[in-house]
């Protein structure tokens, strides 16, 4: 049993964790109610909402911890919070209690997650290096930095790399497109590189991995589609939306025309409707924006619920179990 400053730290971590899980549960319920409405807002508003959901449990956990922490002891707000909710053993912590177990489980899950994502990154890095080794063609990047041409007949283009993202365009793509269409593809990929989309996708994948799996996948899919919309919008600055949409459809046709045994180009990770959605978004963009106050107010309400729920859960569990 710990009775020291370390006990305070361990209790605060426990509170943050409990707040995190309660927050994740509340946001999961909120998603089932409000999730379908998100698509009707502008791309920027949608991005704000998805980030609110992904970062929500983390923010709620940390804020809950701050409210329970002795940092503000003696202040009016602390006294008010303590009159409503409190952690009755802030200076005592027992590792063999349910608090200790939850901290250990969280740490183990996080280590496993880091190991899995790290392995994936390492393998992807190796695959890209090997790809470069065997297939870098003479430069046809139209003088663009950050664009590399792959000497392959596969009609593909993608951006990879976390800190220095590079756009890869295969000859199979370049040879089958007009100069204007190729420019659209390159501008789109360069927008991904400028926005550091591979890195943000990794962070979103990591932060959302603590949600129920189905919601995590949904958030990742939505976020990935948003990065595509944003890259499409960047391309529309220099080209007409119709040209970008037509290029998109043409590229899909090039891919679907591939023989079945060449299906290893299957970069089909957005699900069935994303091309339709991207074309629709290009032709008739959703412009309804969401006032910033809405996510802030929403998170404030969630925070109140979380704090009360943490207190209630703590007392409920401890009326059933003891710490020893």
């Amino acid at each position, binding site marked *: 049993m710990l009775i020291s400053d370390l006990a305070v730290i361990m209790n605060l971590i426990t509170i943050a964790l409990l707040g995190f899980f309660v927050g994740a549960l509340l946001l999961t319920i909120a998603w089932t109610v409000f999730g379908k409405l998100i698509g009707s807002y502008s791309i920027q508003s949608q991005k704000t909402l998805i980030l609110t959901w992904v970062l929500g449990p983390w923010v709620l956990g940390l804020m809950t911890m701050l409210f329970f922490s002795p940092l503000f002891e003696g202040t009016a707000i602390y006294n008010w919070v303590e009159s409503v909710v409190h952690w009755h053993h802030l200076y005592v912590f027992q590792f063999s209690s349910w608090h200790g177990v939850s901290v250990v489980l969280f740490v183990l899950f996080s280590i496993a997650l880091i190991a899995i994502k790290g392995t994936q990154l390492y393998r*992807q890095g190796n695959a890209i290096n*090997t790809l470069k080794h065997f297939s870098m063609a003479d430069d046809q990047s139209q003088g663009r930095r950050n664009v590399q041409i792959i000497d392959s*007949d596969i009609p593909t283009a*993608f951006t990879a790399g976390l800190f220095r993202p590079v756009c890869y365009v295969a000859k199979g793509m370049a040879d089958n497109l007009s100069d204007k269409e190729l420019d659209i593809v390159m501008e789109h990929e360069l927008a*991904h590189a400028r926005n550091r989309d*591979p890195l943000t996708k990794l962070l979103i994948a990591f932060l959302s991995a603590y949600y129920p799996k189905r919601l995590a996948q949904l958030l990742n899919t939505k976020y990935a589609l948003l990065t595509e919309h944003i890259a499409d919008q960047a391309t529309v600055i220099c080209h007409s939306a*119709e040209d970008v949409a*037509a290029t998109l459809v043409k590229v*899909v046709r090039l891919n679907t025309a591939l023989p079945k045994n060449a299906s290893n180009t*299957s970069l089909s990770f957005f699900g069935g409707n994303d091309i339709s959605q991207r074309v629709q978004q290009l032709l008739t963009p959703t412009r309804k924006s969401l006032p910033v106050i809405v996510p802030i107010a929403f998170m404030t309400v969630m925070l109140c619920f979380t704090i009360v729920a943490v207190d209630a859960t703590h007392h409920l569990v401890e009326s059933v179990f003891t710490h020893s």
Partner: protein
Amino acid sequence: MFLGELEKQVLQYLWSSPGVDVKRVHAELSKQRDSSLNTVQSALERLFKKGLLSREKQGHAYLYRAEIARDDLIAKLIDSVASDFVSKGENSLIAAFSSVSTEMDEEQLDQLEQLIEIQRQQLKKGDSGAD
């Protein structure tokens, strides 16, 4: 698919010179790097186990040749760059220009093209109306 530096060089050499034994591979690669015969033998063995090489015994030695064509390997690598992160609905950490939806059939693509054409026509009408 994971390939070490030596494995890449071995594979590259075998594409240009199929049906050679370990000594020949070692002699060729020693112009580029300092590797022992055993190291080259291990690389050949690993590539064989990965299914990237085939071999046939001739006398006391194996003759190796690439089992996979360069273009097929590149296709596999592109797939592997994407699919490492794609499994079971997860998203890729690469950002591709288009996702190939197996569910997108010709009819759907035709409909999208019609939509685009209608929009073009409407814009033209709008422009000529403004003139």
